[in-house]
């Protein structure tokens, strides 16, 4: 066991974790933040994407212990106070989801993409999403939603 301190969605937690606890299980089972999904467990699908110190990472391919001292944001942290993030609104407007399983990961990846590159081309969006797999939508509406969010937030710092 080791003790870790992490800030998740603005709140600090100090918890005991077993060495082998994956970060995604810590978030879901210990903190009850089940918005972060597990689609594959082998670092492939991207459903578990969160932000670690501001950058998108796959929370199934790191140990909770590795996150000690970090600042984490999960999908729940994107809408503090309940007001939806522009990406969430755009996914709604453009029908960027069907079953919704991949959506938290898509949105967290897209949020990192837009923070690095506020005006991505369609190709840059598609390349940026290469680590996120969706078995429902065929991706087009996801790409459109991200384009729409980018247009709406153009010039507005994240």
């Amino acid at each position: 066991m080791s003790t870790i301190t992490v800030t998740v969605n603005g709140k600090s937690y100090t918890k005991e974790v077993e060495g082998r606890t994956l970060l995604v299980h810590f978030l879901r089972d210990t903190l009850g933040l089940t918005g972060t999904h597990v689609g594959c467990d082998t670092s492939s699908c991207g459903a578990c994407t969160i932000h670690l110190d501001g950058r998108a990472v796959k929370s199934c391919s790191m140990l909770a212990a590795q996150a000690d001292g970090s600042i984490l944001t999960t999908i729940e942290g994107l809408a503090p106070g309940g007001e939806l993030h522009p990406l969430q609104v755009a996914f709604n407007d453009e029908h960027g989801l069907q079953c919704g399983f991949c959506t938290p990961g898509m949105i967290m990846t897209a949020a990192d993409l837009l923070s690095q590159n506020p005006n991505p081309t369609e190709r840059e969006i598609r390349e940026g999403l290469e680590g996120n797999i969706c078995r429902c939508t065929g991706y087009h509406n996801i790409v459109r939603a991200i384009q729409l969010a980018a247009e709406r937030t153009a010039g507005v710092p994240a």
Partner: protein
Amino acid sequence: MNSFSYSRPDDVNAAVGEISEQTQAKFIAGGTNLLDLMKENVEHPQHLVDINHLPLGFIDELPEGGLRLGALVTNADTAYHELVQKNYPLLSMAILAGASPQLRNMATNGGNLFQRTRCYYFYDTATACNKREPGSGCGALTGYNRIHAILGTASSGNTPQCIATHPSDMCVALRALDAVVRVSGPNGDRTIPIADFHRLPGDEPERDNTIEPGELVTAIDLPAEHFNTHYTYLKLRDRASYAFALVSVAVALRLDEGGQIAEARIALGGVAHKPWRNPAAEALLTGKAADTTLFRQVAEQLLDGAQGYGNNTFKIELAKRAIVRALDMAYAGSTQAGDAYKQEDIL
């Protein structure tokens, strides 16, 4: 995943000391390869030494004009670093052709060197694999071997012991750039040219590289030669994104004032247990201008001795064509630099 003890030292000597004291201990950096292998029960360390708190997160200019990349700098931060983009765009391009943004944000330069093969049988503990379990046989040799090696597979016996490939994109560019790996270990520090870092399987397929037990990679040095005008990284794969290379080619050319090739470096990925180069093939280009017939000769020479095992035999011709194409692109100094990798051009 088996349970293990875990520690997080903050200096290099402590990390090296701990790994040498414990039995079955491993370093963990980004964890993007090691944890998958642990989940699949291919690796089962008893102790993990988390090296993320070591002060190896630097990118420093070297006095002679080279660049030192700290082992813990992420692949993303390396690929997007101003000096890497300006001076070593071949390296940026190769890194960005691999994995996905989330993985590159986590994967480290040190960890990338050590990533293990993607051979399906290596991952499947129900099958024979000499790399995972020496002496058990090679499932791929008589099985499905589309992604497997076509060069450098010989062992002392009649049949190869292992036909796995090294899956890294970054390492192919490092090989073309003649990078040098810096290591600290129980017996002090040493440097290993990238050409000698990875090894061919021979009779010891369980060994991917020449690192000794307890040694830690601290940095990777890039020499002063930049090759930032005529270069390319061409990656061919089964899907246009998010897949490992079937064949990849890193080309770095230096042209003289008359447009003749003064120096050529060509490294191949996806074809062998290590990134592959052949100095004799590169020498054919010295003093020459672009010429498709010559490029084809170079490709023939690079694939000299290549052998297919059935499903992967197509890779011999694929590699030759990829080499010609990559040489054409690099020589032309074509637009690839701004537009990392244009799949439409490739497919």
